[in-house]
């Protein structure tokens, strides 16, 4: 196999500083239209500034060229488990860019931003209704920040009750790394809970762990195994009876939209990654938005601000920012990632009550279809109906041919498909976590299944093909150990 990359060469990898030519400009600026003022004090001024000097056309070509080195949802099937890489409606981008939304300043008088506040108020209500919770704060700027907000509310709730010895949070061993990290940032100690052979919470382990020093349980439903815990009611009741808060990580909310309201199960707090479930484009790692929805007893602790609606005598509505009575405080300088909120609102409005349940139904059908067709080719660590994603294992290929989940992933790139999430959850050997989402057609899924079968066959016939993959990406496999050993983190002369 020819290993030479076809899309790139070293000259395309030159940085803007290396392309810089003294005297070139990338944009023009107006002349000074006020009389010249007194110079600033010299000792405050910098001696030099190293920045690129490139013409506009060069910048456009450079960045356009490197953009093509990316896989993206608009170009490629992107079944990256846990990340909900669904199609992002274009109209939502246009709407978020309307000057009435994009150009308003966060500190304008409330009377001048009633449209923005109204949208936020409606979105709060919609998210509370979809999740079955009592109220919403849109303030957290990402999923992990929503988790932190949730943990801070858990802490504040117990403290308000004078219950100060609750210093521990239970977290399943299948959870995302953000869960334990968020709990620790909120000042909790973490107790890891094991998962039973069926992929459910280990009830005996939970029984053993519960005591009067447990503040709450961070629970992802469905779990990161893509499985819905069949003991969920027992789990919720046990934790609540022990005085704990049930915190739902909404990372996998795409599995249950319109099908289940976590609030009805007894969840106290739930965050939603609006960028995943409600289509803010992922942008190479953000922006996100991590709205938190809560039950009645947690309402007073919501992060500030929330948007309230008032009406006057003539029934004119007026929307205002408000601070919940015992708020945990602010999560960012202003009121959350408004641009992402606009998109989430537009998405929910478009789908409405007919479309919202169909999202989860199709996501779950697509995942189970993959599971049913791939069975026997790859191992299924938990051979039961999955939800919106399916976790498979390449351990059979590793055993038979020495081929790993990494090799399968890199070979998928050659077929134009973004690899699934690899080696997660940590409790599954050679894990490949596949989340097709509802926005993929049966044809795309069928093609993916065929490719997975082909790759499994290649693993037996020609393992080096997989070991050396990818073959036609901008780079062959990159040396991550070198990068960590000798950090080269910025341009230098």
């Amino acid at each position, binding site marked *: 196999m020819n290993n030479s990359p076809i899309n790139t060469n070293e000259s395309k990898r030159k940085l803007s500083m290396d392309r810089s030519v003294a005297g070139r400009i990338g944009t023009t600026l107006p002349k000074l239209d006020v009389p010249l003022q007194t110079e600033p004090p010299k000792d405050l001024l910098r001696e030099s500034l190293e920045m*690129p000097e490139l013409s506009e056309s060069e910048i456009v070509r450079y960045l356009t060229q490197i953009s093509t080195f990316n896989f993206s949802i608009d170009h490629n099937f992107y079944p990256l488990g846990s990340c909900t890489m669904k199609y992002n409606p274009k109209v939502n981008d246009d709407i978020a860019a309307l000057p009435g939304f994009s150009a308003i300043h966060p500190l304008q008088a409330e009377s001048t931003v009633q449209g923005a506040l109204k949208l936020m108020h409606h979105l709060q209500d919609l998210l509370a209704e979809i999740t079955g919770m009592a109220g919403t704060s849109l303030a957290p700027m990402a999923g992990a920040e929503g988790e932190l907000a949730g943990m801070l509310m858990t802490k504040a709730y117990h403290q308000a009750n004078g219950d100060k010895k609750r210093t521990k949070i239970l977290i399943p061993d299948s959870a995302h790394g953000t869960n334990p990290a968020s709990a620790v940032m909120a*000042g909790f100690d973490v107790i890891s809970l094991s998962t039973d052979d069926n992929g459910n919470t280990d009830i005996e382990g939970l029984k053993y762990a519960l005591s009067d020093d447990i503040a709450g349980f961070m629970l992802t439903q469905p779990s990161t195994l893509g499985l819905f815990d069949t003991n969920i009611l027992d789990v919720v009741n046990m934790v609540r009876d022990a005085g704990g808060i049930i915190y739902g990580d909404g990372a996998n909310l795409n599995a249950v939209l319109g099908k289940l309201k976590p609030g009805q199960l007894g969840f106290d707090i739930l965050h939603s990654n609006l960028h995943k479930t409600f289509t803010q484009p992922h942008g190479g790692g953000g922006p996100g938005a991590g709205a938190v929805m809560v039950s009645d007893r947690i309402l007073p602790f919501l992060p500030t601000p929330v948007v309230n609606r008032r009406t006057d005598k003539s029934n004119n509505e007026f929307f205002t920012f408000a601070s919940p009575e015992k708020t945990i405080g602010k999560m960012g300088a202003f009121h959350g990632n408004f641009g992402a909120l606009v998109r989430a609102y537009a998405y929910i409005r478009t789908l409405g009550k007919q479309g919202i349940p169909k999202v989860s139904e199709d996501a779950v059908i697509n995942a189970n279809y993959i599971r049913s067709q791939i069975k026997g080719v790859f191992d299924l660590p938990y051979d039961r109906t999955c939800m919106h994603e399916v976790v498979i294992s390449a351990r059979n290929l590793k055993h038979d041919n020495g081929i790993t989940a990494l090799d399968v992933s890199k070979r998928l790139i050659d077929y134009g498909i973004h690899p699934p999430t690899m080696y997660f959850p940590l409790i599954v050997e050679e894990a490949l976590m596949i989340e097709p989402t509802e926005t993929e057609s049966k044809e795309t899924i069928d093609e993916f299944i065929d490719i997975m079968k082909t790759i499994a066959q290649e693993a037996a016939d020609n393992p080096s093909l997989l070991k050396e993959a990818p073959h036609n990406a901008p780079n062959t496999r*990159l040396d991550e150990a070198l990068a960590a050993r000798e950090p080269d983190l910025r341009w230098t002369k």
Partner: protein
Amino acid sequence: MSSDKNTGLKFSSPYTPNTENDRAEMLKAIGVNTVDDLFKDIPASYLNPELKIPDAISEMELVQEMEDLANLNSVPGEYASFMGSGAYKHFIPSIVNRLALRSEFMTCYTPYQPEVSQGTLQAHFEFQSMVCQLTGMDVANAGMYDGSTALSEAALMACRVTKKQVVSVFDSVSPYYRDVLKTFLDAPGIKIESAKDGNLKVNKNHACLIVQQPNYFGYFEDLSKLSDDIHNAGGLLIVVTDPISLGMYKPPADYGADIVVAEGQSMGIATSFGGPYVGLFACKQQYIRQMPGRIVGRTKDTNGNTGYVLTLQTREQHIRRDRATSNICTSVGLIALMSTIYMISQGKQGLKHIANLCYQKAHYAAAKINEIDGYIVHTDKPFFKEFVVSCPMSPKEINKRLLHNKIIGGVDVSNLTKNGMLICVTETNSKDEIDLLVSSLSEIITEG
């Protein structure tokens, strides 16, 4: 709405391609009869709850509804705006959005698979490089949520580095940032002490001193002296800065800053009612393994060609879990990319020129406002593009009247200084706009 018992709801949306036929075929292949057979793990009495949300609408109806909402807002641009306080209106060259909104940049995930994410990774590396060049620091991460959380993470990092549990914060740091700092630092039990200019009492218990330069009110602090004070006490200096000011002003590194954070919004990002923005985070080389957030490094592939990867990941939550330096997962990649394009586009000459335009126009406005009877501009310290005016009446009332003249006035800071209004002037404010502000402020006095 008719529904089919076997396959669920009959409803078409442009975002879900599977037809009733597709669904039926797939369910058959899976080996179940109905779609709800796939949801049987959910307790039956909780399945398919009533959903009280509005009906689906068409794209056309959506656009109309959203335009109606947007039109309820008063938009800077149609108005002359002098509002800053941490969110700034600067001109955004077309290429920023045109390039960043390319599908390849916009609809990709975190670059966990480096071979198919080189565009994002190289752009992040550019971002880190230019943040270092602007701030003068050794290393930068790929971005934080916003300036305020970048500051909070910086304070937590200073506590990790120094193993101390008290931070000292100048009272001229943005009140919004201080609020967020409280949220982040209260939980792990870190004490926040407020410090005042001329009354600084840092000691060996302080992990860091936090100073904003230019400060929240637009003015320059005596950073050299403050740097000496905190370093002599054995703590770190954290500087919050405005990247636009760094086009002409001395970078925080020159004063000995250990960690520098900033709001990146002013570089090519719409104010968008407060977000999404991007926090800049840079520090000295020796602290890289204590940094929060994503970091991109340059490396080689198996053919010896240059490429980029996420690196030093053992600091991060997905590897280190409860022992990670932070729970942060995102780097707000798209917004960081926008500010990267902005920095490349403005370049060496543009960044200096914009800073100078802001300086000149703000000083012109300040001088003119100071000439009006009853208004006093604070000029005891040098300032950049923002300054405080003591007004003859409540800024709230003044702003209300300014709106009639199509002016969005400055931010009301009367809670911090009597009848204070914090006015911001950037390159986007023409002389005509400034003169209109001045004449309007003057009229308000005459009207009484």
